């Protein structure tokens, strides 16, 4: 019982975080004890830890407060407490960019770097180089050169790595330390070797001859460090690539010999380098593939992952080279690491036979939701490759892809799926309809404009040639109404393609509203360009909708050989138009008075489309048009009053009755003063 209590106590204790409720201001306040004498190392250490913890949590320190804390910290150099001193170095590094005048600690650090305490020297060098600029670097150059060749590994490594960091900033100074680095490269310590090799390469990488010489030297002398070996392999394969040397070059031999290294890290690096070489023959790949095959049964997940990922790459170009590993890969299908399982399956999809496809696809769909987007893309790519190889399997694949398309996922993933479906459609005519149907479903709820426009474009291209083009029009139409400009534009042009490719047939199926909308939007566009003609074009078009609807309806009821003509619309509606007008541009057709019931709606829509009127709220009532001119003059002007909750809008319709003249620059000057008028 007592024990239980203890345990509970412990648990509640483990939940508390001594740093949880740290306040930056309180900590900085505490930092004042840095100035007390004598220095209390334990307390100061704790405060420095808190400061670094806060910085680490992403807390923002202002320049003034950071500088203040930094200067207080410099006093702690008087203490000889080892851990405290080390924390001072860390604070310097963390604050190098946020505090001002950090260079005041230069002399303290230089002293520590050249002092007797080996524990201080390495970290002091790293802190010093962090706050040093090119001009100051010259002043410490002598110490740096000495440190690089120091017999204490941590000092030498620190100096080499810090030099590497400074190559970007002060190449010309660091370049002068090549001889020291060369000397360090023959150190017995494996890390010093690695760091020296890295620095030498960075200093010489633009001089191919020097790099070649360096490679020759090190590949012959034999290094102890596995890290250095990996670096050498990378340098060698880069050089092979650049010089386009054949695979009989000694460099290739060197990489191949690394396949027999004792260290797995080196073996894997070499195998990976060979696999990634362009133009590798199957025979050259074979030794690399066989070491990767061995790694497949390693108890280490990272090694299995590395191996199967590399084999997956081999399978893209040389599926036959990987066939030998099929058995090992089969064992990885059920690996508890889903990344490994995915890679194994996708590799098998590339190397296996057609009969295994169904089984593998079933396996993969059982956990596809658990893997990250990156691997989903790998899966999609595998499917894409598979469809090319086994065209007969496209229905299984298409089904799978459509399920994936419905799942959550990022842009790259969705794009991969869409691309894959598109390529299947292009290669298998019989899969076109299902594919298009899946894509249509996808654009119904697609947040990626690029993909939506791409699909709409495809629908425009393929849709009209399908047996039932009408199916797709509904989907496209939804895009016209709901989406952003780019998608709407794509949707309208897709519709235009439907119209262009099978004109009469298409129009028969065409939802008339769709086409009106398209024309409507085209006119809206026009309106932007010619603002003055706005109301003119606008009214003309919109009021013709009911007429168009009627005539189209009539047309579909009574199909004729004659293609449907937009220009015939107003003519078809002559029975219900009272005014006889020339109908050369569609836009000039008149308002049929008898269609009054829908008039209010039309006005509402027209007004809503004018940006200035959008804030006015719902239209309350519109008056009957009042003729302001006599019917037989050169131009006819009518006025309609629109009443909103708080506004009154006067609409002036000007109609040109002359064919050979253009009406331009219309202005309205309302003279009725008490009413605020907007046009």
């Amino acid at each position, binding site marked *: 019982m007592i024990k239980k209590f203890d345990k509970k106590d412990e648990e509640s204790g483990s939940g508390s975080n001594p740093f949880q409720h740290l306040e930056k201001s309180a900590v900085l306040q505490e930092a004042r004890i840095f100035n007390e004498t004598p220095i209390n190392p334990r307390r100061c250490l704790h405060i420095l*830890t808190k400061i*670094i913890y806060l910085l680490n949590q992403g807390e923002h320190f202002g320049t003034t407060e950071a500088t203040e804390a930094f200067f207080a910290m410099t006093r702690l150099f008087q203490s000889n407490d080892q851990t405290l001193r080390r924390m001072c170095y860390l604070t310097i590094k963390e604050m190098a960019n946020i505090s001002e005048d950090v260079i005041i600690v230069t002399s303290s650090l230089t002293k520590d770097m050249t002092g007797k305490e080996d524990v201080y020297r390495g970290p002091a060098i790293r802190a010093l180089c962090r706050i040093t600029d090119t001009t100051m670097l010259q002043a410490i150059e002598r110490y740096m050169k000495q440190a690089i060749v120091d017999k204490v590994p941590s000092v030498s490594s620190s100096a080499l790595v810090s030099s590497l960091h400074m190559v970007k900033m002060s190449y010309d100074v660091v370049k002068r330390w090549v001889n020291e680095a060369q000397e360090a490269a023959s150190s017995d310590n494996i890390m010093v070797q690695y760091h020296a090799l890295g620095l030498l390469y960075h200093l010489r990488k633009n001089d191919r001859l020097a790099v070649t010489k360096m490679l020759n030297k090190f590949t012959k002398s034999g290094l102890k460090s596995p890290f250095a070996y990996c*670096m050498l392999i990378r340098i060698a394969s880069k050089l092979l690539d650049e010089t386009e040397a054949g695979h009989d070059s000694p460099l290739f031999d060197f990489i191949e010999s690394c396949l027999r290294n004792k260290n797995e*890290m080196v073996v894997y690096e070499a195998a990976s380098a060979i696999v990634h070489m362009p133009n590798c023959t199957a025979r050259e790949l074979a030794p690399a593939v066989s070491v990767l095959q061995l790694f497949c049964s390693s108890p280490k997940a990272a090694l299995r992952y590395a191996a199967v990922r590399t084999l997956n*790459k081999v399978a893209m170009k040389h599926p036959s080279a990987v066939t030998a590993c099929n058995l090992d890969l089969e064992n990885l299908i059920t690996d508890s690491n889903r990344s490994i399982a995915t890679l194994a399956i996708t590799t098998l999809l590339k190397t296996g036979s057609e009969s295994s496809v169904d089984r593998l696809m079933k396996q993969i769909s059982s956990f596809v939701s658990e893997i990250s987007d990156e691997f989903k893309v790998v899966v999609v790519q595998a499917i894409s490759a598979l469809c090319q190889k086994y065209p007969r399997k496209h229905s299984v694949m298409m089904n799978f892809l459509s399920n994936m398309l419905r799942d959550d996922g990022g842009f790259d993933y969705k794009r991969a799926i869409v691309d894959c479906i598109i390529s299947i459609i292009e290669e298998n005519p019989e899969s076109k309809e299902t594919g298009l149907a899946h894509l249509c479903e996808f654009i119904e709820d697609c947040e990626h404009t690029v993909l939506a426009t791409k699909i709409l474009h495809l629908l425009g291209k393929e849709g009209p040639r399908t047996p039932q083009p009408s199916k797709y029009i509904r989907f496209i139409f939804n895009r016209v109404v709901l989406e952003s400009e780019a998608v709407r534009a794509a949707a309208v042009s897709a519709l235009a393609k439907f119209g262009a490719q099978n004109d009469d047939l298409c129009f028969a199926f065409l939802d008339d509203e769709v086409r009106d909308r398209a024309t409507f939007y085209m006119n809206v566009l026009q309106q932007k360009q010619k603002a003055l003609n706005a109301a003119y074009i606008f009214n003309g078009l919109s009021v013709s909708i009911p007429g168009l609807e009627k005539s189209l309806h009539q047309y579909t009821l009574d199909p004729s050989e004659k293609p449907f003509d937009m220009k015939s619309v107003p003519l078809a509606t002559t029975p219900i138009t009272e005014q006889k007008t020339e109908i050369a541009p569609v836009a000039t057709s008149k308002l049929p008075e008898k269609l009054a019931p829908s008039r209010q709606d039309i006005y509402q829509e027209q007004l809503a489309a004018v940006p200035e009127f959008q804030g006015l709220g719902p239209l309350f009532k519109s008056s009957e048009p009042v003729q302001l001119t006599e019917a037989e003059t050169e131009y006819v002007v009518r006025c309609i009053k629109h009443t909103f909750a708080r506004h009154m809008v006067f609409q002036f319709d000007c109609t040109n009755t002359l064919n050979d003249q253009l009406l331009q620059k219309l202005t309205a000057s309302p003279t009725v003063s008490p009413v605020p008028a907007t046009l």
Partner: protein
Amino acid sequence: MSCNDPPQQEPSLYTVKAVLILDNDGDRLYAKYYDDTYPTVKEQKTFEKNIFNKTHRTDSEIALLEGLTVVYKSNIDLFFYVIGSSHENELMLMAVLNCLFDSLSQMLRKNVERRALLENMEGLFLAVDEIVDGGVILESDPQQVVHRVALRGDDVPLTEQTVTQVLQSAKEQIKWSLLR
């Protein structure tokens, strides 16, 4: 971000992109980013949440996330992550992760859990500083790291501490008197 790009990259010592330690709830206990992959704190925390969500349920050591290779290890209520480019040698990243974990395990006397770690944050800061410097692997041998961090006994009680201090100052005094 695709994992199919040829890794024909500039050979370089810059291997590690980040070292993270998260707790049971996915909150950051320690995070050090060595390049600009995630420049703002906000992006970093989003990334950490994503990593945690994808890894905390499975103990599977390695994953590919947001185009980066992530090697990880969990112990009781701590999650350790080492992150590198997707072209990086996974075993190198693993070497860093193992070195970090083993060093901490020694420093915390095999007691690698949240509370012990929080009580020894300075040890953690110093250890990471010895393992990775600006993205370059500085040391991969935990013995060396522990030796270099040279943390004095972490659980030395205050009384003992004062005794050591007394001895230290006594030594100091004797030294001075001899020098005179």
